[in-house]
């Protein structure tokens, strides 16, 4: 093999300038850089801590992170944290489950049937931009001041984005796969179950990310009326008293909830969408 390289070739002429080809193919390919996210958080918190201690951030603008943490620990020790978290999580779970499952169902029907599409797409488009918070009094009348109105608010809020994402995902399923199913004489139900739904799954899951974030946003709104306990109620109470430490402790809990939901979906995607290239 060694004499291959020693074959005849033009000797390098030292007078002709040679330049190495510049690499220009980098970027545009997301890589896993987990620690950067953590570093950004830590840096921001450290900055605020330093600012509040040094005095160039007044305690009226931002609470000191260590104080917020102290409030959080207090909340934990007194057991109040779980008293607030329990009802909130159940509202979130029930409301989002209702809204998302109804949304996926309607979205799939819109994707499959032209009449359903013609009838419901304009309706969904009309419902989507309504701020559901504005309807809270209506939901209270319809579903009662107790849990019913809270489930309804969160459910309606998650419903419309889920519908839009789902029928988009069904529309995007590779037509050639459906034609393949038909050419093998698969039944309509088999084509839906084995080709359309798995093919739409990536789009449905990425729609759920957005819908569930909206559900967390609406949790606070849902607890505006008739809620004694709940993270939202806790934040609203702290806000009305201008108790910034407690307000921030509540906000941090919501953020953590959001992170948790997003991580869960990422985990599900890794598990069931491993077939994607």
């Amino acid at each position, binding site marked *: 093999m060694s004499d291959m390289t020693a074959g005849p070739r033009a000797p390098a002429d030292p007078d002709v300038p040679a330049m190495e080809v510049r690499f220009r193919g980098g970027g545009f390919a997301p890589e896993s850089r987990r620690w950067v996210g953590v570093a950004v958080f830590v840096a921001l918190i450290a900055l605020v801590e330093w600012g509040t201690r040094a005095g160039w951030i007044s305690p009226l603008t931002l609470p000191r992170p260590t104080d917020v943490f102290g409030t959080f620990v207090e909340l934990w020790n007194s057991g109040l944290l779980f008293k607030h978290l329990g009802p909130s999580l159940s509202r979130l779970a029930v409301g989002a489950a209702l809204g998302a499952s109804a949304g996926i169902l309607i979205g799939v029907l819109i994707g499959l049937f032209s009449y359903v599409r013609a009838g419901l797409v304009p309706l969904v488009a009309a419902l989507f931009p309504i701020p559901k918070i504005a309807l809270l009094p209506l939901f209270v009348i319809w579903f009662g001041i107790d849990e019913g109105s809270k489930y309804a608010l969160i459910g309606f809020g998650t419903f419309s984005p889920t519908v839009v994402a789902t029928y988009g995902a069904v529309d995007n399923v590779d037509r*050639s*796969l459906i*034609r*393949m199913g*038909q*050419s*093998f*004489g*698969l*039944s309509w139900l*088999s084509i839906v179950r*084995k*080709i359309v739904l*798995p*093919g739409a799954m990536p789009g449905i899951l990425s729609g759920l990310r957005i819908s569930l974030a909206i559900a967390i946003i609406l949790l606070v709104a849902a607890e505006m009326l008739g809620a004694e306990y709940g993270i939202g109620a806790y934040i609203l109470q702290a806000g009305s008293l201008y108790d910034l430490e407690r307000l921030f402790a509540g906000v941090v809990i919501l953020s953590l909830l959001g992170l948790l939901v997003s991580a869960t979906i990422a985990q599900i995607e890794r598990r069931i969408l*491993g*077939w*994607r*290239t």
Partner: protein
Amino acid sequence: MDIRLEAISHAYGDTDVLEDITLDIPAGRIVCLVGPSGCGKSTLLRIIGGLERPGAGRVLQVGAPPEGCLNPLTYVFQDFALLPWRTVRGNVSLVLEDHGIRRARARDIIDDVLARTKLSDFAGALPKQLSGGMKQRVAIARALAVNPAVMLMDEPLSALDSQTRELLMDDLIALWTRQPFTSVYVTHNLAEAVRLGHRIVVLSRRPGRICEVVEIDKPLAERLYADPDLDDVQRHLWELMRDEARAAEEELIDV
């Protein structure tokens, strides 16, 4: 089971695509359809398989499909059409499940077709792990699993590189020699047509009409790579097609 096409014509809106195609596809033979691109080969194949309704004329199945045939008219697509979320085994099993074939019976069929297409070692692989040639072999295995009366192949090798194409042609010939199947094989590649076709149907440019039907008597197993006997046929086919292809090409630019 034979297939008979009777005076098939078809148009998409104002564009006539096929005109008066009458053709017999005898059992146990491979009929190749060649013609310039856009002349309606894929459309004709979709009409034969019942995926599209012809504007005029009809497609007849003459005789009963063989015993144990689950899907008489079965396609092999150019883009493979494998479900990316199913393994090789799962992709084959997909077409058996609807016929109530499960467990041991399904396993026997799947093992058999995977062995015939030399895929036994890849039963658990996902499509994304396979090369193009292997994906097309999976699609062929899937088609064989339903024991088709007629295989409708739409440019099955056109997405593959030329070495893979040669290998797969050998595979197809071996499959046919072991157990002759009936096939309508669409291609724009004349070398494929003379290698695999018992009968080669040359279509004109759009609207597609039958220009000539060429029979090749030499048995498939005796046809070799760059076979001199086939060269004459291939040259003759090219002569028939050259002007049509050029005209079709210029037509596309005009549009």
